[in-house]
């Protein structure tokens, strides 16, 4: 069940987050939104398992990308983001998850809402849409602490400028860029109204972020008249050290 992946590339997304590209010779592909479990084992036999979402679209190179945010007191993430080098091997299990996924045959409009590193599985969905030339309109509302905390900045900018059916909106919670029209703050009712699909289009919502973020956004969507069946959530937190 555990397989060995070899690190083929490392890329810093922010000061604390790193994207790791792994080569997996027997990888059978994955669906956007799925995650893998990574296992690290110390020389004394102690091992720790953590889940990380896949950031890349399925591809023929048998490679996956995961993006790991370093947690100050983390057991696994400091190693993955600071010590892991190209050529190193890690054990992993997956792909995992069948519910928080976007399949390329879905035709309805899609609303993605990310809190911080919750962007990772949603980025895989956007990349899968582009890779398969799927047509449903995508909207992303991405809540981040500050402009420098944005993951996949160049990719998102390119996508949004080249493809008018992928719309990206940012919500900054602490620091806003110069001349930004909105004060820093969390996603609220007004932002849901202005930056997400209205209930009338029956979009499917994918919300990913820390548990408190997911609960508050899901409540706003429910209050706003969206059907529970159309809302899919994925929570992460320090316990599981997700993403």
């Amino acid at each position, binding site marked *: 069940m555990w397989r060995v992946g070899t690190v083929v590339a490392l890329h810093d997304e922010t000061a604390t987050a790193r994207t790791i590209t792994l080569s997996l010779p027997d990888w059978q592909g994955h669906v956007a939104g799925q995650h893998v479990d990574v296992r690290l084992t110390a020389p004394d036999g102690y091992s720790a398992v953590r889940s990380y979402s896949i950031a890349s679209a399925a591809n023929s190179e048998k490679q996956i990308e995961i993006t790991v945010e370093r947690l100050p007191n983390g057991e696994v993430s400091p190693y993955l983001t600071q010590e892991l080098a190209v050529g190193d091997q890690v054990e992993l299990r997956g792909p995992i998850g069948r*519910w928080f996924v976007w399949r390329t045959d879905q035709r309805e409009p899609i609303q993605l809402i990310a809190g911080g590193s919750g962007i990772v599985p949603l980025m895989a969905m956007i990349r899968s849409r582009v890779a398969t030339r799927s047509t449903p309109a995508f909207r992303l509302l991405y809540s981040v602490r500050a402009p420098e905390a944005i993951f996949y900045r160049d990719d998102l900018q390119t996508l949004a400028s080249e493809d008018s059916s992928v719309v990206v909106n940012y919500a900054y919670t602490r620091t806003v860029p110069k001349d930004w029209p909105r004060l820093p703050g969390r996603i609220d009712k007004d932002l849901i109204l202005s930056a997400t699909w209205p209930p009338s289009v029956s979009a499917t919502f994918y919300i990913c972020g820390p548990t408190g973020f997911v609960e508050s956004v899901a409540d706003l969507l429910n209050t706003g008249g969206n059907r529970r069946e159309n809302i899919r959530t994925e929570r992460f937190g320090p*316990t599981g050290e997700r993403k």
Partner: protein
Amino acid sequence: MTLQTYSYLDGNAAAGELSRIFAMDITAAKGQCANCGAKRHFAEAHLYMQCPGLVARCVVCDHVLLRVVDAGQRMVLDMRGMRYLAVEMSQSQESSVAV
């Protein structure tokens, strides 16, 4: 608006560990809570991991649905909180989608 601290994740985070027991991923399977009767996908359950195992609770009534403990040489699974778990077999063939 303030964000309170939450101590749970969701059923999705248990899928890797449960794959050691079940032949297929059960996150998209629908289960019924034995306490309140709510029918939800397993991925929607609230998952507590800061115990000597995993505990999934009903998203509606908080009743324990499933517990799983890794006891070294054996895994112990307690599913008394779930009346049933309905698995769509069409998905079992679709292990993954490669481009």
